[in-house]
């Protein structure tokens, strides 16, 4: 079994009001020096067998269409040890 993690974050130029709210809360709870918080999503996908090139290409296609909206979000894919 292989584990693939897809991280999705709003593009830097898109306002992230949720991240801003979290940033404010961190400050109120005593964490000093926070300059920015961005809130995103993580998808942990377990697949049978190995992640070969064809499968990775398929994952990229779905990460860029279903899992993220390329108009407002960037994604990254990494394979991790399950």
């Amino acid at each position, binding site marked *: 079994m292989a584990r693939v993690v897809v991280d999705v974050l*709003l593009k830097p*130029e*898109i*306002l992230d*009001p*949720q991240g801003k*709210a979290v940033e404010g809360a961190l400050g109120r709870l005593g964490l000093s020096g926070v300059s920015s918080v961005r809130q995103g999503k993580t998808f942990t996908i377990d697949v049978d067998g190995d992640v070969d090139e064809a499968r990775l290409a398929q994952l990229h296609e779905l990460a860029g269409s*279903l*899992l993220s*909206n390329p*108009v*407002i979000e960037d994604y990254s894919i990494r394979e991790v040890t399950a």
Partner: protein
Amino acid sequence: MTSGMRIGVVTFPGSLDDRDAVRAVRIAGGEAVALWHADANLHSVDAVVLPGGFSYGDYLRCGAIARFAPVMTPLVDAAKGGMPILGICNGFQVLCESHLLPGALVRNDHLHFICRDQKLRVESTSTAWTSEFEVSQEIVIPLKNGEGGYVADEKTLDQLEAEGRIVARYLDVNPNGSRRDIAGITNERGNVVGLMPHPEHAVESLTGPTTDGLGFFTSVLTSLVNR
């Protein structure tokens, strides 16, 4: 009196305003046809409304899963062929996710869900859904959303302005942080319109703040007759 025109209203799991959209179509004089998200065809309708609500619980992103519903395959083809399509609120989000309209809708900048009677200025009357308004006409219809902030890159926004594709703008107050006060846009051809406020809730004086919303539904019937 009915026009004989068949206007489909799609129900996704989690749609809320499909019944009101059906009512609005009928009051405007059209024949409302209920479409189901799992339908493989559009049942010979002449136009389609994608209603407001929370399709698929707004999971993943608003409209992101609805975009892949079976009914969207014939709908996207029909839209590209010129069929009038109106996406209201969640329907607007579905149209953006489907890339039938540019840009995206994001969380309101103030983070609150907003529900108010909203003043708008109709900017374009050359769409299938706004032909019965006058340019710069001011209307008031309900607005209710949590993720209604319209965003697109500057180039796209400039292009929308230059091509007259901004259909309506918020007046007096920008309720959700939408870029350039955009409340609604259209595609190049003017047949696909996305609108964040809800015209279907403003078609009867008993329940709506005005009957200004009716114009969207009578417009499409006129557009279809004059086709």
